[in-house]
């Protein structure tokens, strides 16, 4: 009996020390998890986050172990996030706005796990937020669109009337207007982030209304495909409808139609944060990078773009990256004519984050 007892004690001791040793073993790979709102697929929002995950694997090799789960509905995500935390994941990236509250709830229960929430505005000691200044890319697109349009009508396919989307519309419009005072924007709201059929309908409607350049803040390649189709059977020297790649480059979907693109490039940020987590220097912060860090990457320009236009767009891109040009620099009035920014004044991040108004010159109302 006594022997049994001491045997038991010895086992318990071994187990305990073994446990401690395993914990203090610093060679364990850092577990990094990613939660995607859509299927990964071949392009678009979730695909770009997946590219970031692959870049992390590439960079750190055996020092990291990554997991991911795709198509997690925003309204039912808390369970999945918690499951990931429970599995001992050290750093979790939740990559859609709707994960904000669930991420914060789980983070409260797992204070030793680090969380990174994309596009949100609420942080905690172990919850960072990060997003991209994609509106900087819209400025570049606006310059290209303003120059390349012949009908002076630019079509814009918008998803939901949230600040992110409205910011993009305003930045595009201001840039296009600055190079072409006659430019007019037609905006179609499709109430979806990804619906090829609806996006195609919107593109066709915009083309019917005279738009010859289409911009989109939705994820599918349908508008690009529609624009590309207008290039079929054209004579030498004629041009069809132009469009821009969104989130991914989309080059292969519109070899003629694609003017340029905004590419979401999360790799630099993900590598930086994983490194910080490994070094023990990770802290809750708010990261909002743009062209400067490559989070907003501008895709190659179409060959049809005249050299001086390309140079102008490139110059704007470089000035934004260098911090010399802010896309929202006054004087800018709101749609109703009231003054928003005085001469030389630039918009602060708070206003940009909550933007819910059009700038002067854009017609129509933001849907409610």
């Amino acid at each position, binding site marked *: 009996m006594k022997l049994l007892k001491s045997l038991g004690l010895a086992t318990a001791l071994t187990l305990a020390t073994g446990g401690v040793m395993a914990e203090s073993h610093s060679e364990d790979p850092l577990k990094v998890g990613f939660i995607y709102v859509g299927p990964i697929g071949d392009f678009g929002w979730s695909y770009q986050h997946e590219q970031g995950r692959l870049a992390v694997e590439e960079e750190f090799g055996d020092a990291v172990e990554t*997991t991911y789960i795709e198509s997690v509905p925003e309204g039912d995500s808390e369970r999945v996030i918690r499951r990931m935390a*429970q*599995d001992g994941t050290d750093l979790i990236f939740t990559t859609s706005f*709707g994960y904000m509250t669930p991420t914060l709830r789980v983070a409260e*229960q797992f204070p030793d796990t680090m969380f990174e929430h994309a596009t949100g505005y609420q942080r905690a000691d172990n919850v960072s937020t990060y997003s991209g200044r994609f509106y900087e890319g819209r400025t570049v697109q606006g310059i290209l669109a303003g120059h390349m349009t012949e009908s002076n009508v630019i079509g814009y396919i918008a998803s939901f*009337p949230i600040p992110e989307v409205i910011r993009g519309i305003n930045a595009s419009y201001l840039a296009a207007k600055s190079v072409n005072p006659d430019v007019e924007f037609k905006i179609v709201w499709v109430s979806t982030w990804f619906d090829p059929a609806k996006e195609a309908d919107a593109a066709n409607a915009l083309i019917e209304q005279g738009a010859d350049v289409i911009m989109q803040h939705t994820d599918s390649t349908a508008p690009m495909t529609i624009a590309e189709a207008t290039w079929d059977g054209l004579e030498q020297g004629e041009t069809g409808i132009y469009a821009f790649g969104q989130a991914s480059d989309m080059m292969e979907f519109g070899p003629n139609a694609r003017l340029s693109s905004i590419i979401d490039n999360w790799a630099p940020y993900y590598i930086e944060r994983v490194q910080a987590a490994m070094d023990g220097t990770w802290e809750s912060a708010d990261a909002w990078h743009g062209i400067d860090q490559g989070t907003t990457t501008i895709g190659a320009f179409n060959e049809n773009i005249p050299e001086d236009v390309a140079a102008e767009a490139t110059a704007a891109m470089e000035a934004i990256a260098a911090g010399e040009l802010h896309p929202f620099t006054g004087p800018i009035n709101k749609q109703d004519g009231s003054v928003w920014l005085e001469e030389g004044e630039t918009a602060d991040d708070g206003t940009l984050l909550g*933007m819910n108004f059009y700038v002067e010159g854009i017609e129509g109302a933001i849907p409610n």
Partner: protein
Amino acid sequence: MIRLEPRLAPSRTMMWGTPVLAVIATMIAGGILFAILGKNPVEAIWTIFVDPILDPYSRDELFVKAAPLVLIAIGLSFGFRAGIWNIGAEGQFIVGAIAGAAVGLAFYGTPAIWLLPLMALAGMAAGTFWAMIPAFLKVRYNANEILVSLMLVYVADQLLRAMVAGPLRNPAGFNFPESRLFHDSAVLPLLQGMPGLTQYTRVHLGVLIALILVPLAWVLLRKHVLGFNIQVMGSAPRAARFSGVRPSSIVYICLGLSGALAGLAGLFEVAGPAGQLVPALPQGYGFTAIIVAFLGRLNPLGILAAGLVMALTYIGGENAQLDLNLPRAAISVFQGMLLFFLLGLDILVRYRIRFGARGIAQ
């Protein structure tokens, strides 16, 4: 030669046996699918079907996920038995969530024990109202309730978007389309500390209420005259009329009941796991519940089991994605297989398989 022979009466053994057969068939076919994808089929099936039951945390989540399905399906089963096809439970779910949330937000910050009951009443009333539209149009103008109730789902969804972008939008939320978080009195209490539940359980009071409603619905259906009238109405409408059952009141009762329960489920979701009104709230529970109702043979106890099985495939599927890196699409195919086998094998309830030549008539 194999042929199907009609049974004289539906087989009771098969009625409860085919779901089990279907699960086994799904395991075999799914195992082949996973093997082709290069995964260990036994491990994959185990992860999907067994792990969620053994893991206490996943077990809690089974109930959280199944509760709205069971609640809605029970409501629907009454109508389905009477031949009244409410396909729009999703819409009733949404308006229930909106109404309940609106009440909760109207009393924002008020610590009150009566607030949750009031929200529940508002949710049920809104769901009932939404279901009364197809009921009225059916009784008065003989409009098809399948179409009307389905169309109202899209109206409800637009209404939800308008509400979160407008009157119910969080004033401090940077104009994002969602409401503020409810205060404590407007959130369903969690059943923490109940035996069998984990420390961080998300099982809330609504789950308990859904479980309590299961036997109540069974009694109503089997022992109460209303349940009898509903069943007669479904199987022999003319006989029902002769025995004094008014078809129009059955239409109102069945649609009203399913609307009320769907609205209550919506309120439970918004005041439970969500804790705020968000545009992503509807998960298609109202549609999935139709499947759950039929899987459960329109019987409240069967519906409870069917709801849990449905929840199991969701949660097991997520675990398989995380643990085994199975692609999401493969999980969806697997879930589709389960439904296919469940519905396909139903033929055995009314037919039997005969081998060899046709025998003499019995």
